[in-house]
């Protein structure tokens, strides 16, 4: 396993109009590791995540300064192909958002768009569903509507859909917050499998979850990265007082 940095964030600042939502954020995201982002609501975790795949470009009035280096290349350079970038950095959203089409078509959506041929498609779909630990539950109903799946299954389908485009990095924004404990558990197990092949960044409100699944954790507060460390260290021996207050629930 390579231990280099997949992504390096340098002095990242972001404004929504006058709202300075990210302030001088610096962070290294290691290859094939799970990096968790925690912090109170509204501190900018989702905003930060959207900076990594440039989904903030879609929001009107956003201004970004600083650098996000993906394998050393600044993704905010002028001539960067955003479409190609998003193919390398997949995202799984907070609320499962499968498309209103069949399970098969959902997973095949990305590969089709990126020109994978008909012959290979079956294989890609099967592999992605297997990697997302959903294959056994849906292999006999691939043509069924994705929206008929349970919430947990829908979320794993969204993971399969993201895997199907063979990204290097997958961003998860509170992927379990709409799910029951069993589905949550399945996805946490899945993350451990996925990190063998992918670099993972996950935003979560659940501190136990961050402690359980991640290798590194960053603590955000009011748009600033307060502390970043190995997960074990950050939770057992935080350097900053604010971090300690937050993880012990004394915050506020």
């Amino acid at each position: 396993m390579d231990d280099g940095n997949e992504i390096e964030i340098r002095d990242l600042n972001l404004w929504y109009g006058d709202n300075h939502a990210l302030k001088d954020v610096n962070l290294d995201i290691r290859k094939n590791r799970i990096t968790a982002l925690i912090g109170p609501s509204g501190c900018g975790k989702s905003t930060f995540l959207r900076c990594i795949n440039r989904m903030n470009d879609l929001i009107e009035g956003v201004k970004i300064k600083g650098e996000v280096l993906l394998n050393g290349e600044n993704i905010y350079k002028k001539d960067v192909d955003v479409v190609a970038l998003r193919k390398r950095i997949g995202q799984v959203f907070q609320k499962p958002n499968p498309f209103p089409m069949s399970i098969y078509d959902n997973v095949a959506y990305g590969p089709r768009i990126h020109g994978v041929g008909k012959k290979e498609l079956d294989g890609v779909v099967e592999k992605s569903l297997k990697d997302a630990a959903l294959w056994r539950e849906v292999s006999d109903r691939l043509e069924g509507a994705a929206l008929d799946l349970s919430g947990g299954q829908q979320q794993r389908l969204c993971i399969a859909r993201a895997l199907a485009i063979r990204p290097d990095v997958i961003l998860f924004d509170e992927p379990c917050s709409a799910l029951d404990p069993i589905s949550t558990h399945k996805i946490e197990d899945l993350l451990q499998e996925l990190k063998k092949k992918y670099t993972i960044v996950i935003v979560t409100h659940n501190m136990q979850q961050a402690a359980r699944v991640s290798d590194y954790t960053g603590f955000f507060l009011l748009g600033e990265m307060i502390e970043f460390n190995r997960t074990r260290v950050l939770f057992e021996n935080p350097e900053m007082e604010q971090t300690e207050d937050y993880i012990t629930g004394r915050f506020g």
Partner: protein
Amino acid sequence: MNHQKREDLVKSVLFVFSITASLILLLIIIFLFNEAIRLFQEVSFLDFLFGTKWNPEQGLYGAFPFVFFSIMATLGALIIAIPLGVSCAVFLAEIAPGWARDATRPVIELLAGIPSIIYGLFGLVIIVRFIKVSLELATGETILAGSIILAAMILPIIISISQDSIESVPKSFKLGSLAMGATNWQTLRKIILPTALPGIFAGIILGVGRAMGETMAVVLVLGNSENMPEVVKQLLGKEGSSTVMQLINQVPEILFKPGEALTSAILLEMGPAQVGGLHYSALFALGVILFCITFVLSVASNYILSRSQISVR
């Protein structure tokens, strides 16, 4: 107790009102069919629907030319209005900045509310003349002119319903697609339009209903039986003979000829027709055809809309 009683009272009043409304509708339908039924004691239903000769003086009541002209004018309108309306809706819903959207919405609603006679006058003065001059025809009062005017009239319906259904596609679908590296165009074509399609379709069907039922604008620009050239007179049975197939084969030609829509026929002939006579009854039968067409269209449109809500959630 008192509350309960008052609620019961309100409930029964509302019930009576809604029953009254439905009853009135039912009465209109019964009346329409009742007036029309006399015709079918003399003329068989199939002869009426597919007969190509309409000449009340000779007792000929073939409604097909009217149906045909109505359908042609409507199809022509759709060919113009669907691409224009849907692309306009896509632009407004997906591409235009917020202020442009806010500015166009009231304008489009206003367009939908303009009385149809105004469209007719506009058509008569501008479009009919334009067609006459530019195509060097004997008269500009043609099916084509009717199609153009109808297109203008159904455009606001198609735009606003299509725009609504495109805007009601959940944002999460769009974000999901873009986050996978789809372009805006791919997202539009593969996710947004298919999801919005039932709504767009319902809007189109509603437009078809409006176009088929439109009277005032059409009667002004389509020409009428008084100054109809020979071809059309033939079709209507004054002389010569023609069949349904012949009529259909002449589509390209007829497009540049005057015609008479179902609605125009009723409007123009109701005056001369003797009340209670066969001619009178035949005009009501034309109304029945119109009613059935619009009824089927509106049921279809409602059905499609209700199903779309299920599939999108």
